[in-house]
């Protein structure tokens, strides 16, 4: 069709497959290059070159087409417009491409480039790289002529035939967005569940949502929202209920005024067929609609037919973040168009069987859903709208006496009004939607293999396959129940290495580094020498069941940085901590809490390590060095020159004693839980609030300071204004004093919320403490030890921090378990990365 300028236009799908058809030499490649991006074009010549190093090697054609199909299939799966540049004059060649397109549920257009045979022969003659005889062109031309007649029936959405070189050169190709693509609409939306002719409840719900209804003679004909919200109806406006025409009139009005969108439900589809005179079984409330519409004007009936005729089966909204379809839609179908996509959207993933009530059995696709977009739908009535893997069914059976429900997007808020009465007898009693829902289902494909995770705080993070494999073993053999595992702490880097005499680590560098990152104020927290612990505590068993899905009576967990439980049973510890944290439950108005802590003493968990590693070394040193000194002394008395050896042995003995004192400082007797304490230093999250993300450390420490209990060890800390040399020096003195009295050291963190590039915390460990990390004699080798590389450690710290926050946010926002688990799992996977364990 010509446009205003008189140029011919052809309309092709913006996403889908375009098959060029034309004999060799017809100018397909030139045409393609003119109208499409080079990457959008897949040509058979190019593929022949790929597999044979020769674009004209006809013997390579079968392999070349294998490659071509593979490329086309991959591009279509990824949702890219693809143009096939091959002669495609034979029906079989086209059929196989159409099959590929259908398998990805995209539209296929054909563009026929139909030049006179003589032109093509002449063009081929001019090409030096190809020696097709004229007979080949003639044969292709015959094939094309034969094809043209039947082309329309081969499954193309449209066939564009361009004849004559002038038309071919002048044509303009217009890309048409698919009808379901409304990514340009950003809401906010009020998505409304199955209405089924309940016009009173619909008006009530709209009013409750803040809509202003417009009436024409007491009949609601339109509605608008003062805040400019848009309504999206999930379909099934009609049938069963008392006033199908009233509902249609209002919704049609809202759509006409641009205030609403509506997708087709299966009931609209069937009603439409009935109204158009098709023979359908009149059941499931269709009779009511037909009778009610019969009382309306012919004009209204025709409007209703047009309206229902124009309904499409799903919309992709808000940059692809929201999909609305009547019966839901699996991810691979989002934005696609085909018979089976429509049928999925209208009827769900039916298995073809029927249940005891004669209703179709549906495959619970939402259980498997792992897509990014939120999917909102209706169709299956249940007693309550609930999230299942970022999808929600809004059909709460208003017509059966349930309620009419809306979801506010993006607020994720549910609003509903009860049915005025039961309007229709349900075939099957309304039950909870959860019969086939397993919120705790984890799939191997959620975690295994190489994957990229998107995090709000640290960008895109790669989890290599081998790390995931290692983490899988730890996770499934040793970790606590994944329902409690909502967070794992990130690794923490030490401060940049100090050059100060006798020091490997010193506060100066910490202050300089943070100042360099643009942080103005830091908090120095005493680093407790114990075991890192995450405590997730529910207020009671009911809260545990409701919020964590814990059905075995557990009310919390305290676990290590690799997700292992601390003791054979942590119930007692959980109970003690719950009592201790009572003030927080009250002040934060929450029924669960996640705390980041250190569990003390170190020996409570690490006694075996202390004995096999540290005490053994100490014992060996304390026994062997005095004997060596005695033997050296005897040699000295004989006049042998062993003075250097003796002084080194003497110095080692002193170091060994210091080493024994260093580790023994972290050993305290414990008996079961008696003697065990927790030192919380951050409140990770509570109901509705990812506190680790939203509150500065100052807030956390102040809240935690309110806890007073035998099981809580307070975390000493001080704030430092980095611009004040005086405050820096005072903090350094504080650190020296702390570490001189057996303290491990301190952790320096930004006191205010800091940006993405800033390390979440860095540790500054004391001189004596480092003996148990770098060995008793490390102070003799500082020159070597200063050559250490923090880059990888810091990169991991940042990534794990981002993943941890992602997990907490997902849990707080009630994302499905697998989503929380994916981030937590990724932290564990990154922790299997080999990094110098002394850092």
């Amino acid at each position: 069709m010509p446009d205003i300028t008189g140029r011919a236009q052809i309309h092709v799908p913006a996403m889908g497959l375009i098959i060029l058809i034309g004999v060799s030499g017809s100018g397909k490649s030139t045409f393609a290059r003119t109208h499409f991006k080079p990457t959008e074009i897949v040509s058979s010549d190019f593929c022949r070159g790929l597999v044979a190093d020769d674009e004209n090697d006809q013997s390579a054609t079968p392999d070349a087409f294998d490659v071509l199909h593979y490329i086309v299939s991959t591009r279509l799966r990824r949702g890219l417009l693809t143009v096939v540049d091959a002669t495609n004059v034979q029906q079989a060649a086209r059929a196989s491409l159409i099959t590929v397109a259908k398998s990805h549920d995209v539209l296929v257009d054909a563009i026929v480039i139909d030049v006179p045979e003589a032109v093509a022969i002449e063009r081929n003659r001019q090409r030096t790289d190809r020696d097709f005889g004229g007979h080949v062109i003639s044969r292709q031309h015959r094939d094309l002529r034969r094809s043209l007649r039947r082309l329309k029936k081969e499954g193309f959405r449209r066939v564009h035939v361009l004849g004559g070189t002038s038309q071919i050169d002048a044509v303009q190709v217009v890309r048409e967005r698919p009808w379901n693509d409304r990514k340009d609409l950003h809401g906010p939306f009020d998505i409304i569940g199955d209405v089924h002719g309940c016009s009173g409840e619909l008006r009530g719900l709209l009013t409750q949502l803040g809509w202003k209804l417009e009436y024409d003679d007491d009949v609601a004909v339109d509605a608008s929202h003062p805040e400019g919200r848009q309504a999206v109806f999930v379909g099934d406006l009609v049938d069963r209920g008392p006033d199908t025409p009233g509902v249609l009139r209002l919704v049609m009005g809202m759509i006409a005024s641009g205030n609403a969108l509506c997708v087709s439900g299966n009931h609209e589809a069937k009603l439409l067929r009935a109204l158009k005179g098709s023979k359908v079984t009149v059941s499931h409330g269709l009779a009511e609609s037909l009778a009610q519409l019969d009382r309306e004007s012919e004009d209204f009936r025709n409007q209703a037919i047009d309206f229902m005729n124009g309904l499409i089966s799903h919309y992709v909204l808000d940059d692809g973040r929201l999909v609305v379809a009547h019966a839901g839609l699996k991810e691979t179908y989002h934005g696609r168009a085909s018979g089976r996509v429509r049928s999925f959207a209208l009827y769900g993933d039916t298995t073809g069987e029927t249940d005891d009530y004669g209703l179709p059995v549906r495959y619970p696709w939402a259980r498997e859903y792992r897509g990014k977009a939120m999917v909102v739908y209706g169709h299956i009535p249940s007693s309550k709208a609930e999230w299942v893997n970022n999808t929600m069914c809004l059909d709460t059976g208003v017509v059966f006496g349930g309620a009419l429900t809306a979801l506010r997007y993006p607020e994720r808020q549910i609003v509903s009004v009860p049915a005025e009465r039961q309007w229709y007898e349900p075939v099957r009693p309304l039950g909870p939607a959860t019969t086939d829902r397993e919120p705790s289902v984890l799939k191997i494909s959620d975690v295994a293999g190489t994957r990229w995770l998107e995090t709000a705080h640290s960008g895109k993070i790669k989890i290599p396959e081998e790390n995931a494999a290692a983490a899988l073993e730890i996770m499934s053999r040793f970790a606590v129940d994944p329902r409690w595992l909502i967070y794992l702490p990130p690794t923490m880097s030490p401060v940049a290495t100090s050059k100060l005499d006798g020091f490997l680590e010193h506060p100066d560098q910490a202050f300089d580094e943070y100042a360099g990152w643009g942080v103005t104020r830091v908090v120095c927290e005493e680093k407790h020498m114990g075991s890192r612990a995450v405590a997730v505590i529910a207020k009671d068993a009911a809260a545990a069941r409701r919020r964590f899905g814990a059905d075995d009576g557990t009310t919390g967990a305290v676990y290590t940085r690799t997700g292992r439980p601390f003791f054979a049973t942590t119930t007692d510890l959980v109970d003690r901590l719950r009592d201790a944290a009572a003030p927080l439950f009250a002040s934060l108005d929450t029924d669960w809490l996640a705390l980041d802590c250190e569990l003390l003493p170190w020996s409570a968990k690490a006694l075996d390590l202390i004995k096999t590693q540290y005490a053994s070394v100490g014992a060996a040193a304390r026994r062997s060095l005095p004997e060596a000194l005695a033997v050296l002394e005897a040699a000295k008395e004989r006049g042998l020159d062993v003075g250097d050896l003796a002084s080194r042995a003497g110095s080692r003995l002193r170091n060994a004693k210091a080493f024994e004192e260093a580790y023994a400082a972290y050993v305290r007797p414990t008996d079961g839980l008696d003697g065990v304490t927790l030192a919380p230093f951050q409140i990770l999250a509570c109901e509705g609030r990812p506190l680790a993300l939203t509150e500065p450390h100052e807030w956390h420490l102040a809240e935690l300071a309110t806890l007073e209990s035998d099981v809580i060890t307070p975390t000493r800390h001080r704030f430092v204004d980095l611009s004040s040399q005086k405050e820096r020096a005072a903090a350094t003195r504080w650190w020296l004093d702390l570490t001189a009295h057996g303290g491990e050291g301190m952790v320096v963190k930004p006191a205010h919320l800091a940006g993405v590039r800033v390390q979440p915390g860095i540790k500054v460990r004391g001189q004596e403490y480092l003996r148990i990390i770098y060995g008793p004699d490390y102070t003799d080798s500082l020159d070597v030890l200063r050559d250490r590389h923090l880059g990888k450690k810091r990169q991991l710290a940042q990534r794990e921090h981002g993943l941890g926050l992602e997990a907490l946010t997902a849990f707080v926002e009630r994302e499905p378990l697998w989503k929380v688990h994916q981030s937590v799992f990724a932290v564990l996977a990154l922790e299997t990365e080999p990094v110098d364990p002394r850092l």
Partner: protein
Amino acid sequence: MILTISTTHQPATDLGFLLHKHPDRVQSFKQSAGTATVFYPEASKERCTVALMLEVDPVRLARSHARNTPDFSLAQYVNDRSYAASSLLGVALADVFSTARSGRCTSRQELADSAIPLEIQIPVLPCRGGPDIAHRIFEPLGWEVEALPIPLNEAFPEWGDSRYIRLRLAGTVRLADALNQLYVLLPVLDESKHYWQGPDEVDKLMRSGEGWLAAHPESSLITRRYLGRRRGLTNVALARLAELGDDVEDAVETVADDETPQREEKRVPLNVQRHEVVHSALLELGARSVIDLGCGPGQFLHRLVKTPFFDRVAGSDISVRSLQHAARRLRVERMSERQADRVELFQSALTYEDERFAGYDAAVLMEVIEHVDSFRLGALERVVFGVARPAAVIVTTPNYEYNVLYEQIDGLRHTDHRFEWTREQFGSWSDGVAAAYGYRVQRRGVGDLHERFGTPTQMAVFTREENRDA
């Protein structure tokens, strides 16, 4: 670390000739791990003592060895290598006294060939197995042994003894033999070596053990520990020792299995009986395709692969290492394409839904569920019975009641077992699973039947009820 050797042979200072080190000098020798120094704290006609001191700087040692050194404690900066006599000292000794070790001494050959009174003192010697092992190993060689345990830390007496002993050996022994014995036996007692072992390690052992190792009653223990439990090498060494006239056949370790030994050694091992029973159950079921969930290093899988009746065999395990063992056992890399098409091995966790579990006639969970935390069992049940839904599932697990018949067992049979069930517990679990997921279940015992405690292993065979969906 330090070691001293004294003699009271007259004149004692002849020790200097035997060792090729002058008693009045202090000599240092560069070693890969540090510096060895030889000196004499006493050197009179009556008694002469040589000291070998090795100074090791663990930081430099750790830095010079790449992270793939076999002895992981080396990679740690906190280790006992500066203080305790280990293979490092053994190697230094062999190097510094190499001529003496070969038994050659031009000026005193006769002395070198004769046994002389010796006293060897090692203040700190890592000794796995404690003083008893030191006695067992050194006494047959003619030493009078004094082995004193060293406590971990006097401040914490409840911690008990360390893995170190103070060792004093006294005896009349040829010096070269004493040195060779120390060279071999220091790492044997420590059971740890600081270098990778190649096949020539066997030759080293044969050379240094000449004249004393073959006849030693603990020769197989020594060989095994010296070669660091590398069975391939151990077997070669034991075979070579056998050629020298010793019967060490039965010292060859039987295939490791995480299974407690049977009460009576002569019986067919329980794991073999279990394989037998499950194998025939699969044949009875007529299952043509079988997946072994938690296949471990693939013993049973191997058996399945060798049975042509099974068209398709798969093994999955949580441990990548086990799967590598299984692949080696099955010789996956050398299989013909046709064979390889029958077999699949992959990593998986039984608590995660996995599409690869589906499509088999039967799934085997042999001694697997007891390794799964009870709070994860529900997920396992759903994954296996609810989602994969094979026509048959065979589960075996220990019978806890039977444990009283094992003398060595106090509690559970394996440290990784999260639980062990009585017959009643297993019965109610398997009935529950069958009812929930639409299976019929039959239970049998495996192993010798005790009238009160039943069989050591219990087995349940689940078959899917065809007209039911879970």
